[in-house]
């Protein structure tokens, strides 16, 4: 049996066409694309999948925790419809606009309040700010061991044996529990919600905590708790136009491409 806490968040769809990505430069903010629904952060979804794999093999309970404002129920309830048991939301305005520091702090305090856990799982990096820090931050605040870039987890004799992706392969690491693991995509595609899961998720009321419920001061969280300042947000300019090489047939176009590259001294 394992008690697993998994941290998830709502993001704008990272697979939306890049052309739909817009920012409000004056406000240093991303403009959510119209007509494209937000989604659960993909790496957090990999973390949910990792939690479910653990539950499949050793049993136990999965609690998802999500911090953010304006979260759609359909989005944040996805872990429940995939098979998680509980959902805790930190939705108070005071939590909004934080950086890795204030977000990790609030999540760590919520996890402390949840109390019993063997593992905390996070994604390796959220698709919005690509920060890659919240997992390690929670571990440090809760004084837990952490392993990042995790691609496989086994629970053996009260410890976790995990595979960690490295730049030239992977390593097998044993870590004492409780521990925090940041999950990479090699863990395997997240499963689809089942009909039964979707029905259960509909009925499930999330637990909602305000700053006071988890014993944090408004000055330590959200915008007020930031330790980094975003001074500028902008879109890189893409210069250049693509020259499309044509031909009488696809084969001909392929040959023409070779000729053109040779002409242009690229090859």
């Amino acid at each position: 049996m394992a008690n697993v806490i998994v941290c998830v968040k709502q993001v704008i769809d990272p697979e939306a066409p890049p052309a739909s990505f817009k920012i409000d430069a004056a406000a240093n903010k991303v403009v959510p694309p119209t007509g494209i629904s937000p989604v659960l952060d993909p790496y957090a979804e990999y973390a949910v999948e990792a939690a479910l794999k653990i539950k499949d093999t050793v049993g136990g309970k999965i609690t998802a925790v999500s911090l953010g404002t304006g979260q759609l129920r359909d989005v944040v309830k996805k872990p429940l419809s995939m098979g998680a048991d509980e959902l805790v939301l930190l939705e108070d305005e005071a939590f909004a606009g934080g950086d890795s520091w204030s977000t990790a702090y609030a999540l760590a305090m919520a996890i402390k309040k949840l109390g019993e856990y063997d593992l905390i799982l996070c994604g390796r990096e959220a698709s919005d700010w690509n920060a890659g820090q919240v997992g390690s931050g929670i571990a440090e605040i809760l004084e837990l061991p952490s392993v990042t870039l995790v691609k496989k987890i086994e629970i053996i004799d009260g410890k976790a044996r995990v595979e960690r992706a490295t730049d030239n392969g992977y390593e097998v690491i044993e870590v004492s529990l409780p521990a925090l693991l940041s999950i990479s995509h090699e863990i395997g595609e997240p499963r689809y919600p089942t009909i039964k899961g979707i029905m259960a998720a509909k009925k499930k009321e999330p637990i909602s905590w305000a700053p006071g419920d988890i014993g944090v001061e408004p000055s330590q969280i959200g915008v007020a708790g930031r330790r980094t300042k975003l001074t500028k947000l902008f879109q890189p300019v893409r210069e250049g136009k693509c020259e499309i090489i044509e031909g009488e047939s696809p084969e001909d176009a392929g040959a023409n491409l070779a000729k053109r590259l040779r002409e242009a001294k690229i090859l």
Partner: protein
Amino acid sequence: MAEYKGILVHCEVAEGKLTSMATELLGGGRKLADDLGEPLSAVLIGSGVAGLAQEVIAFGADKVYVVEDALIKDYQTDPYIMVMEKITKEAMPQVIMLGQTSIGRDLAPRLAFHLSTTANLGCLELAVDTETKRLLQTKPVYGGNALAIFISETDPQIATVRAKAMSPLEPDPARKGEVITVDAGLAPSLIRTTVLEKVPEEVAGIKLEDAEVVVAGGRGIGGPEGFQQLEDLAKLLKGAVGATRPPCDNGWVPTGQQVGLTGKIVTPDLYIAVAVSGASQHMSGCSGSKNIIAINKDEEANIFREARYGVVGDWKKILPAFTEKLKELLAG
């Protein structure tokens, strides 16, 4: 309270040598240190690394901290945090630079929280703000759809830097510097992980990161057989094969071939993207290439916004003819 001053670079060592990431950081760090008019220090951590200290100085450091202990022969989070905390207290740097590698990605955020300060991961550029003297840290966000410039309001300011974002200096063997040996002083009982095994992924041929030509395939390649054709083209051009994430996830190619935000960064002269849609997270790993060529059946695909030359159509028909013609041209 002592003042935070100067730059500290964490130098990674692989197979007894300084990594290219380390020399790039030293090059970038030297420039920042000069801009600030402050010293550049470096730290070498491991077992049997002391011999590299002079080389670190040759690449630009004024001071090298060497920490050796059998317990830190391999990277592990806990002992590295303890060592870095010790070095930070001794060196009091205002900036700590690490590589955006599997080590830096793990070490930087945890160290930042440990020291009650902040980190920014995957930076492309670091510059000194002339007014505030704080570090302007530029990094891709939203998978590379945007760039953000951050300032850390606490010291030390910690940043990891992406591969190839900075250039190493020409090493000067005559450069003088100071080498300081620091005792790791580790308590084994405080290390909560054990590395049981290291499994390297063998790559045949030219390494992806070093290749001047990369032939990359996407989901549209459809399977491992298709990648064999990319392999043949790569061989002809003395290049390497890369991939988007789906082919790696599907096991068509080893995971080490993945190019992008969560894969390798490549900057070849020529990047041939076949059946790749050009998602920002992928482009984030290859947009520094000199020439991008795209073959895709969808003329609306984003890759055509980034490519210099392209062919619209089925790669299965285009690629063999392209490869054949190239063979002919290269022979003649």
